[in-house]
């Protein structure tokens, strides 16, 4: 069985402007609060991406108009 790199999605809350695309693209991991700002369902400002959602996470990063999302990779 091949190993895969674990990816983690990071939010910079000082950049986020509540556009909400991330929650549309990744409803499994992100929902919005009453003011339209994303909440990682698992809590905090970083969330591990399950293997099957890697491409959606990449799209969320690209879709964010203010670059508030970042994806990191670690073994």
């Amino acid at each position, binding site marked *: 069985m091949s190993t895969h790199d674990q990816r983690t999605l990071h939010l*910079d*809350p*000082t950049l*986020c*402007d*509540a556009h909400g695309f991330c929650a549309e693209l990744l409803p499994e991991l992100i929902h919005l*609060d*009453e*003011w*339209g*700002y994303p*909440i990682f369902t698992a*809590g*905090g*400002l970083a969330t591990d991406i399950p293997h099957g959602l890697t491409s959606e996470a990449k799209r969320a990063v690209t879709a964010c108009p203010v670059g508030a999302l970042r994806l990191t990779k670690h073994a």
Partner: protein
Amino acid sequence: MSTHRLLPIDPQTGRVRDLRTPTAHIGAFGPLGTVRSAAHGKPGPLIEEIAASGLRGRGGGWFPTARKMEAVVASAADRRTRSPGSRPVVIANAMEGEPASGKDAVLLAHVPHLILDGIQAAAATVGATDAYLAVHRGTPSVKMLEHAIGERRSDAVRVELITPPARYVASEESALAHWAGDGVATPVFGDRPFERGMNGRPTLVQNAETLAHLGLIARHGGAWFAEVGDPEAPGTTLVSVGGRVRQPGVIEVPTGTPVADLLARCGDTDGPVEGFLTGGYGGAWVTSEALSSAAWAPAQVRDAGGVIGAGILWALDAQVCPLHEIARVAAYMAGESAGQCGPCRFGLPSLADDLEDLAGGACTSDDLARIGERLSLVVNRGGCKHPDGTARFVSTGLAVFEAEVSEHLRGGCTATRPGHTLPLPKARKTPVKRAGKDFK
């Protein structure tokens, strides 16, 4: 042995001695002596004494000072960050960000050279080439401090006095580094200052009290420092005691002093007190019952449900409505948001409105449930801990004064005296928009 270390007492008057002149300062404490500098990627030798002292930061976090200094030196030595401009920076935080605190003002007014000695000791130990003393804009001692700095011609590192705006979050350590480098006093998300602070340089931000202790450790050593106080967080510490006590003010006590003794030093409570605020407006409320048997040390206060923070203990008059007090402070904290993060920018004003309704008797149990939801919405989602601290202040307050909350839900209020007892700077009604010009 005396436990009036930072603030020597005049035996004639019983008051704190005025040691503002270099002569009086050296007369009381002795000369600082030479502190050897960091070299070859290693901290200066004083680091051994600082580690042995067990000194922890008195600004609120109570983080071991030696470890923070080692981290700054390690960042400066790191190949990935090393460049001609990556020499460390020291910033002394005497901003007095918590409105109920008075210790920075007392230190600045009586022993400014002890803080300046601590800055020199810290700068040498981490190899800093630049050092700053930060006091908030409008501090009355600015001229005196500039004079005091000017008198220190033999200092190895020139200290620059900086005066960021008097905003609550401006005293957060990344905000101070941001101010020193770019002139904007807002917190910075991401890198910690000890790694990348002012202009990307490793930056040691230490509270003024911490540096004053360091000035004494440089003279007397680590073992001397640890002779008094709680073994987990040794030494003496300053406590700003306020509210319903007969003699409010700043006192110096060994850590681990029973809270009952600490209150006795201030003439004891003056009338009924059901709850104490510990740690300030980013701190926590504790019932009198839980706190009265505790000792004033970080772990013991935490076990009682409180937080020492920057050393604030406030006795709330039981005849005042605690919910009005909580609502006033929540509104102030909402106005102090830097407006950088949504949950803080929108969440804190919403909470403040909810709490005003609760205080005014216009709150249902559904509204109360919404307050609980909103409190959880602002935690762990900000670039700094301003919303977290505010949420802790509010949630512990609602728990400690639960009976008053129930009374208000029924439309009542047990207060028999007017409120407005917790000190607040000039109120800001409208929360700021994103990093406005009032942070410059």
